[in-house]
């Protein structure tokens, strides 16, 4: 009985320790342009309290491989605006869901932090607006 109580207390302490521990997480941001060629996007991302953006990387499509534009002041903050555009010179523009960037987050806790995304702009090369969708997932190592 004593052993069981000890194990339970140890697990509880480990859980409490993990909740207070700082974690780093990489999240992939996908945009699905619903069949239209995606040439430009601008997204506003807001993390839950305690989440800090610590890095921004480019995506895997050749036209969006470079890191998107963002305000360096947004790093270490909870709000970030990112934007990028492509000219379609190096490769055909993506028409299906594609990873456009990866964000690195710092936060406390064991859960997946809530990120609120607001797609401000998604457009084709001739500036036609696209009704695109955003998906944010944790990067699998």
């Amino acid at each position, binding site marked *: 009985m004593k052993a069981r109580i000890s194990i339970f207390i140890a697990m509880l302490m480990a859980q409490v320790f993990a909740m207070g521990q700082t974690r780093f997480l990489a999240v992939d941001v996908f945009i699905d342009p619903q069949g239209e060629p995606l*040439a*430009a*996007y*601008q997204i506003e991302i807001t993390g839950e309290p305690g989440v800090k953006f610590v890095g921004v990387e480019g995506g895997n499509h050749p036209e969006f491989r470079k890191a*998107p*534009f*963002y*305000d360096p*002041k*947004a790093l270490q*903050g909870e*709000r*970030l*605006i*990112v*934007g*990028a*555009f492509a*000219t379609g010179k190096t490769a055909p523009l993506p028409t299906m869901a594609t990873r456009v960037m990866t964000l690195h987050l710092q936060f406390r806790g064991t859960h997946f932090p809530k990120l609120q995304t607001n797609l*401000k*702009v998604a*457009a084709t*090369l001739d*500036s036609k607006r696209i009704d695109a969708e955003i998906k944010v997932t944790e990067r699998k190592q």
Partner: protein
Amino acid sequence: MSSPDPKEKKLEKLGRALRKADAARKMFVPPTRDEAILKQARAHFEAHSREERIRPTSIFFPNLIRHWRSLLGGTAIGCIVIGVLLFQGKNVAPRGGAAKFAREDVNRDGQVDILDAMTLAKLAEGKGAPDSFDQNGDRKIDEEDVTLIAAAAVRLN
């Protein structure tokens, strides 16, 4: 038949009033005193009519002409106040003469976003970008200008 002069009428009236006042007070006032008063009144009327001849008056707005300095000053102040109110809050036109749009708003849709950077990038490739889109003032439209617009688009307020 011509009507008597209004000044003379006034003088007659004054003379009558003086005589009546003397009678009411029941005291003797020498006629020379009355004459002196009437003489002074006549001199006053003549001086007044001379002044009116020098400074003509309008039939409709006699006070307007008499106080023309104050009116002119008031009008000038009014014009200045109206001018200041009209020009207050107006945007100064940027280079190129577009008054309502920010310099970074290349596609003139009223907001600065990544589409402005993309539009300028395309214009810069085609060498058809007007000088008004030169962001850094180096008299050429290139990648640096595009980067400046993109940075403005994602800037946190």
